[in-house]
């Protein structure tokens, strides 16, 4: 079989990319928050860029999670008891999180580098 250096280069790039991806993924942490008693389980959370935050509904009724912050605008939709939704925070800054169903439910995520 003939050796083609260009394929060796492509292979090396792919292996390096996979390694970079897995190392980044390994660094990212998952933070789990509960929604219980019409409140978030913490009012303030510090995370790093790339981390994920999982919201778990522990109330017997639907909750929602959304944010209009510049650092991350999203709406995870509504989900019932036992349901959960996850958001990845990919930019540094302050993310104010709210529940559309319960306007008094709020918390803040500080996303650091």
């Amino acid at each position, binding site marked *: 079989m003939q050796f083609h250096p260009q394929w060796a280069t492509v292979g090396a790039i792919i292996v390096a990319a996979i390694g970079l991806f897995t190392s980044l993924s390994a660094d990212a942490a998952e933070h789990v928050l509960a929604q219980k008693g019409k409140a978030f389980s913490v009012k303030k959370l510090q995370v790093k860029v790339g981390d994920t935050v999982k919201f778990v509904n522990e109330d017997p009724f639907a909750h929602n999670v959304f944010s*209009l912050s510049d650092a991350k605008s999203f709406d995870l*939709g509504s989900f019932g008891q036992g349901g959960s939704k996850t958001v990845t925070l990919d930019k540094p800054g302050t993310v104010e999180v*709210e529940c559309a169903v319960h306007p008094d439910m709020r918390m803040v995520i500080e996303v650091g580098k």
Partner: protein
Amino acid sequence: MRPHDSRALWIGVLVVACLLSWAGGVHAEPLPRDSREAAVFRGGLVFANYCVTCHGINADGNGRAARLYDPRPANLRTTDKNDAYLGLIVKMGGQALGRSPFMPPWGAELTEEQMRDIVAYVRSLNLRADATP
């Protein structure tokens, strides 16, 4: 001003406006609880607390969260839906009726009266001449 401060301000404005109009003799007698006017008044308060984030204080679909959604929240001032259908959307949410999944189901959060009041309030704002209750 923070967004939730804005909501509190609007609720305050609604309450003060209603108190002033009441004190000014527009309603010399308390509104009968079952009257349409009372339902619209109560519905306005519920709307200001739960619905303005997406539908906006003018119910025109331009709330502060509207930019998150495609399709955008409904312009309730021009809706052609009747009261029964509006009530179903409020109670069951958009997804149950093949509409936007971002419209939450309010049936577990609001009372039947509150949901009827919201519909009455939305009906009172409707600009369509051909809209049927």
